């Protein structure tokens, strides 16, 4: 999904895909965070952070405000003090935003781990790989299986999933 959001920002999606991604952003907190994060990075690069208005940008600004202003040596075409601060502030923003972006990417990366540390496969990376879910997921599978069984066909299969050993290919 992060890749799709990135493609959306870069205007690389067709209208159908675009609507789907907008749908996710509107309805999914993690997609919304990723959207805000990508825009923040773009804004930081363009030194427009204060105009983004996101919680993350406020956090960055607060951090920067607590930083001492760096006084650079005089140059021939010396920028005034406010410009100097703005340049360093942008550089600082970029560094902090980069570290936060890294954290955000790690948090939002498609390969996740469950409570027991097992790898979960998501999105397009799922094909051909096995997973073992958390106990909570197992519990939901059991609850779900009751109703799958009532379809009358694959009750046996629904329960086979519960005892399937999905960790063999981890």
């Amino acid at each position, binding site marked *: 999904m992060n890749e799709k959001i990135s493609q959306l920002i870069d205007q690389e999606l067709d209208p159908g895909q675009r609507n789907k991604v907008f749908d996710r952003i509107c309805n999914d907190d993690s997609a919304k965070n990723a959207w805000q994060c990508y825009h923040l990075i773009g804004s930081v690069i363009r030194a427009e952070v204060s105009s983004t208005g996101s919680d993350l940008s406020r956090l960055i600004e607060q951090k920067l405000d607590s930083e001492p202003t760096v006084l650079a040596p005089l140059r021939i075409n010396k920028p005034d003090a406010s410009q100097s601060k703005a340049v360093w502030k942008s550089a600082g923003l970029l560094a902090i935003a980069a570290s936060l972006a890294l954290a955000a990417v790690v948090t939002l990366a498609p390969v996740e781990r469950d409570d027991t540390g097992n790898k979960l496969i998501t999105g397009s990376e799922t094909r051909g790989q096995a997973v073992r879910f958390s106990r909570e997921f197992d519990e939901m599978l059991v609850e779900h299986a*009751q109703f799958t069984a009532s*379809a009358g066909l694959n009750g046996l299969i629904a*329960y086979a999933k519960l*005892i399937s050993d999905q960790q063999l290919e981890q």
Partner: protein
Amino acid sequence: MTASAPHLSTKLSSAHGFFSFLLIGLLSTSAAADEAADWLMKISAAAAKVNFSGTFVYVHDGQIEAMEVARRINQDGSMQERLYALNGAPREVIRGMDKVWCYIPDQNVVVHSYRQTSNNGFPGILPGDFAQLRRNYHFVEGVDGRIADREAHQIKVIADDSYRYGYSLWADKQTGLLLRSDLINKDNEIVEQYTFINIEIGGIITDQQLAAKSDQEALQLFGPGTDLPVSADSSDWQVTRIPDGYSLIKHIKRMSPTDGDEVEHRVYADGLSTVSVFIKKAKPGQSHKNGLSRMGAVHAFGKAVNNHRITVMGEVPADTVEFLAMGVRLRN
């Protein structure tokens, strides 16, 4: 003028021949569909009538897992079954009249215990259900073959859109029991398959064959969960959109047997495919899965909304779980 009459007659005759051919074709297609539908009912009925024991393989994600099964239909029509994994951890599922025990000894503590929704778990597919099924699937007669040393007949259930999988089913000719099932995606690929490699149909299934091998004393027992009253109006949540052909068949609220927390569970079905929506309050500091996950044919989609965890899962394509998940919202 007279010269054109034979020509017209020939044309009419050709047209008549063509429409006759078309009509016969349609009738035979319809007859084949009816026959496939009959087979589907036979499969469904056999599941609730026939004792059997045997070994089947469950093939998914490039893995082959062997499992042992014994099922007994008691005189009162109730069903008892034991399912046992022959590879990896010795997990087993025991299904009784109104309970399911799932033994997962490799997780050391987990024994799940739940009640089922019906007395025998196999209410079956009734003729009336086909009207609904035909809105989302069409049926095709397959070929004859041999599965687990038994004569079998194939029925193809083809999904009409990408919100559900299709099936290729092989039924035992003599009893109708399902011997092999392939789940087919929209690209005509087999997503998962289960097929018997040996089976004994009929005969006596002993209590010993149905007894759990796991050491219950060594495992921690969870459940069953406690049901709470719920209705669509009383829920704080709404599912604003449902994929075509699916409808709400169950709405439950229960206390989770593993952590005691309240879980709202909605079940949507199209007659063959089933999708569950779980809504549970998020716990601070607890890790959760966001986005899409998959296990064999099961897709799941997780997201966070207003400090709650939404999980949608089912043996359906990724689009179906995502579509439903995106429509789950807090009621205004």
